[in-house]
């Protein structure tokens, strides 16, 4: 599994923040509004509020545009493309395939033909998570990916993410408030203030 190594400066509203981390499973922890989601967007390549380096193995992803980074991204706001069905959303990432293991693991089989607006918050979150795996990503950025799930589903989904990322050898950056989730996923916590 390739190592993530980042050394970044974030330009937030009234301040600049320096952040360094290294590892294969990184958890960004901190209070609401401290810039975690902005950092996630910088890592994904869709925000210009940061500068520095963000290496995956030998490649500095900061030198690549967002569409060449091969990152599986689960945004915090459950963004699904509203004009596409669940199946079409799962197939949206470039070079994506419908992975039956992911569909079964996240219990999405019966939702494939539905439109996003007919899904509950938890269902949307599972679809967004499944979609982040569907483009054969080299890295995952998961921004509070379990926040809308009930306790029982959350446990199953956290285990699924843990096992799948281990099996596929995909490193990830995980944003969460939940220490329990961070422990279950065996992440290195980076505190963000």
């Amino acid at each position, binding site marked *: 599994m390739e190592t993530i190594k980042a050394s970044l400066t974030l330009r937030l509203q009234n301040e600049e923040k320096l952040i360094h981390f290294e590892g294969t499973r990184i958890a960004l922890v901190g209070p609401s509004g401290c810039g975690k989601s902005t950092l996630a967007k910088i890592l994904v390549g869709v925000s210009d509020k940061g500068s520095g380096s963000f290496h995956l193995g030998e490649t500095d992803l900061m030198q690549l545009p967002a*569409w060449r980074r091969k990152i599986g991204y689960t945004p915090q706001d459950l963004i699904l*493309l509203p004009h596409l*069905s669940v199946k079409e959303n799962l197939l949206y990432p470039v070079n994506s395939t419908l992975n039956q293991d992911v569909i079964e693991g996240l219990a999405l089989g019966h939702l494939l*033909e539905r439109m996003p607006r007919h899904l509950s918050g938890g269902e949307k979150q599972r679809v967004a998570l499944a979609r982040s795996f569907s483009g054969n990503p080299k890295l995952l950025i998961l921004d509070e990916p379990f926040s809308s799930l009930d306790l029982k589903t959350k446990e199953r989904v956290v285990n699924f993410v843990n096992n799948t990322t281990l099996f596929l050898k995909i490193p990830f950056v995980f944003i969460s408030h939940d220490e329990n989730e961070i422990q279950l996923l065996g992440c290195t916590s980076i505190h963000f203030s």
Partner: protein
Amino acid sequence: MDLSVASAIKLSLIVGFCATLVALIPAIFMAKLLDHKKLKFKALLNVLIFFPMVSPPVVTGYLLLMLLGRNSWIGKILESFGIHVPFTILGAVIASVVVGFPLLVMFIRAAFAGLDPQLEQYSLSSGHTPFQTFMKVSLPLSFPGILAGAIVMFARSLGEFGATVVLAGNMEGETRTISLAIYSLMDSASRSTDANTLLIASIALSFIALIAYEACNRFYWKKIEWKQ
């Protein structure tokens, strides 16, 4: 129906359709360009695009005549290719495009501005280039706004008078659209019957345009609904 009345209706439809078709793609491009926060000379571009909307149409027509008339350098170039703009149907189309373009851009820009930027951000992160993202996300999700803009532009073209009369003139069977025909009939003896026919035709066309918009809009949402 009098032949001149039929010809005015036919010319209005031709001018309306052509003007809308010609303006649509440049308007989409311009709206997307103006959507960029960091665009240089954005204020200047805005002034240039929206000037015909705030200036008197006759002034716009006169400026177009100076720009594209036979004595202007653009006019001379066009003439050398056999293209005549003043006092032709092409002139009427150009007048309608210039006057209606700002409205079309305004509608499409509002449609783009209403999109959640996170959808485009997500698309980029999924490996799609900005152009692919535009085609697969921005354009389909802005369809109702683009359609509304096209219908308004078409309706505006049907009613265009000032710029058209200056650039294209008012020649029966060649450049006399519904608005110009009604104006011409106001001084003629046969005005009551023909003017009334044109009036009804004009109102009917406006209603048909609005009904077409509703139908297309419903079809679009039905298509999405149907997929569930």
